[in-house]
């Protein structure tokens, strides 16, 4: 595996990426980058290609043209799983949890990339398997307490309310030990209070050196916490810059923000 440079050098890039679904061009020749320790917002009207972009970055779609890179490594043809092992964590627009498993078990699934134990060793419950399991459980508990789910460790995920489910997805992605975290509308359906908790969480995640990509519709939330903001419209990037630059851009106001 590649040598690990100090954490602030990591960069995830999309180079002139396009994605066509039949005759529809969902993402049209877009380049963007996500650096370690920054929060990069992706905004735009519905159907403008934000989620498609996120899926291209983490491997659910292969680009029709262009490249996805992590530092010098070309990820364009690597699988979702490979990218998870390289440190790409994500959450989903609609939380995808394992409904019958506990909060703790759900978050521990994120530790798959950290697990060495093979199937037969696990079947025989060898001592090193148990030791590894315990260490990962400890870590997951720390992260769950950190995101505020410490009081419901043993509750099945289907009994959580919506906000808790969203936070559990973030915890699960953090257990993956990610270099980059791609959040697909994390504030969707949250209460005002929960959104402010989410803001604090993202700040802490950012400070730990993880690069956060934020696909979001709550524009004031985005403008408050992002270092850079990219605006999409019908698959094209129309404006990229600091929040204040984007907020005052005439084109962005016309297609998305409104006067």
């Amino acid at each position, binding site marked *: *595996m590649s040598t690990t440079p100090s954490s602030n050098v990591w960069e995830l890039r999309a180079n002139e990426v396009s994605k066509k679904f039949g005759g529809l061009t969902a993402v049209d020749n877009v380049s963007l980058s996500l650096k370690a320790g920054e929060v990069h917002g992706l905004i735009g009207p519905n159907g403008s290609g934000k989620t498609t972009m996120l899926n291209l970055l*983490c491997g*659910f779609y292969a680009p029709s043209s262009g490249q996805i890179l992590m530092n010098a490594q070309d990820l364009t043809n690597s*699988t*979702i*799983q490979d990218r*998870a*092992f390289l*440190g790409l*964590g*994500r959450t*989903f627009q609609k939380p*995808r*949890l*394992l*409904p*019958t*498993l506990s909060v703790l*078990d759900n978050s*521990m*699934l*994120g530790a*798959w*990339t*950290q*697990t*060495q*134990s093979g*199937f037969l060793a*696990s*079947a*025989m*419950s060898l001592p090193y398997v148990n030791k590894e*399991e315990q260490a*990962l459980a400890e870590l997951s508990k*720390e*992260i769950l*307490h*950190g*995101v*505020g*789910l*410490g009081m*419901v460790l043993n*509750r099945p995920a289907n009994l959580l*309310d919506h906000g*808790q489910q969203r*936070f559990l997805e973030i915890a*699960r992605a953090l257990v993956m*030990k990610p270099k980059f975290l791609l959040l697909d509308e994390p504030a969707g359906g949250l209460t005002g*209070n*929960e959104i402010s*908790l989410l803001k*604090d*969480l993202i700040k*802490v*995640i950012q400070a*730990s*050196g*993880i690069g956060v990509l934020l696909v979001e519709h709550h524009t004031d939330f985005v403008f408050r916490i992002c270092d850079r903001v990219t605006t999409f419209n019908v698959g094209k990037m129309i404006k990229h810059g600091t929040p204040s630059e984007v907020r005052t851009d005439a084109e962005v106001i016309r297609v998305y923000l409104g006067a």
Partner: protein
Amino acid sequence: MKHLNSKSTQLFLGILFCSSIPFWANDQYQIHIATLIGIYWVLVSGLNLVVGFTGQLSIGHVGLLSIGSYAFAILAGKLGFDPYLSMLVSGCLGGFCGLMLGLPSLRLPGFYFAMATMAFSLIVNELVLAQGDLTGGGIGLAGPLFPAPFESPIGFYYFVLAIATLFTWASLNIVRSMWGRALISIRDSEVAAQAMGVPIFRAKLIVFVFSGFAAGISGALFASLQSYITPDTFVFELSLFFFVCIIIGGKGSILGPFLGTVVLTALPELAAPLAKLGNLFYGILLLIVVLVIPEGIGRLADMFIQKIRPRLVKTEPMKPDLSRLAQTLVTYSDTKRGQK
């Protein structure tokens, strides 16, 4: 261990109870049924990981059972090899055939995978009939006994109990490990599984090969118990029977499918009138379970308690501990990343 693990305690009490059966059973026939349940359970415990945990609807495991049975009858009976070794070889052959079946079929979506496994079990039976000089064709083969002390019905029962315990223990371990979570993630949300790095096809294949191994071992024991096997023994209905045991027991449970195996094997045998109506009985039971207790009989007690005293779920507001999170993330990112 400081405190008693409830699952382990349950398992221990279960084994204790099963060990006592020969002391109070009324006749040899009841011992025979108990042994048969144990043998079926070896197969079902493996199949349960495939169906109940990974969500892959295999209805072809009778083919793997048949392969294990014939391998044992040929190796230990016709060729006179050591029965224990033959049993192990039967298991490995079952695992190998599981691999050969899984490689092309496990990429198929649910229903098509079920059809592929069904076709496999039908093909195996035809091949057994066609290869008469090896398998005895329609006449069949004798299944040899294990050597003393396992040659008597009671001795053999304890032998089967030991092996069934081993498989129960192994599947309990799998379910409680990282692999259990990965298998359930494949069942419940493939996209989440992928995003977490779970290699879907490989994980399915591994667990399918394991179930093939269990089916092979089960087949060897089955041949020895039945003392004579013919292609008529391995009808497709038996495959459905294994599948129904798991559905009635409930997905994502080990106790449930075990109870399913016990009930479906024992009830028609012990209540004589039901034996004539075997398939009708399965059908009715399946309907009742699916309509009334879709969670499966493994959760029956749980559901009952819920009805009487519903568990209240309080939604407390979340209180993130930001300094703890920051601390964890920073120390965590300094440690070496896991590699596979």
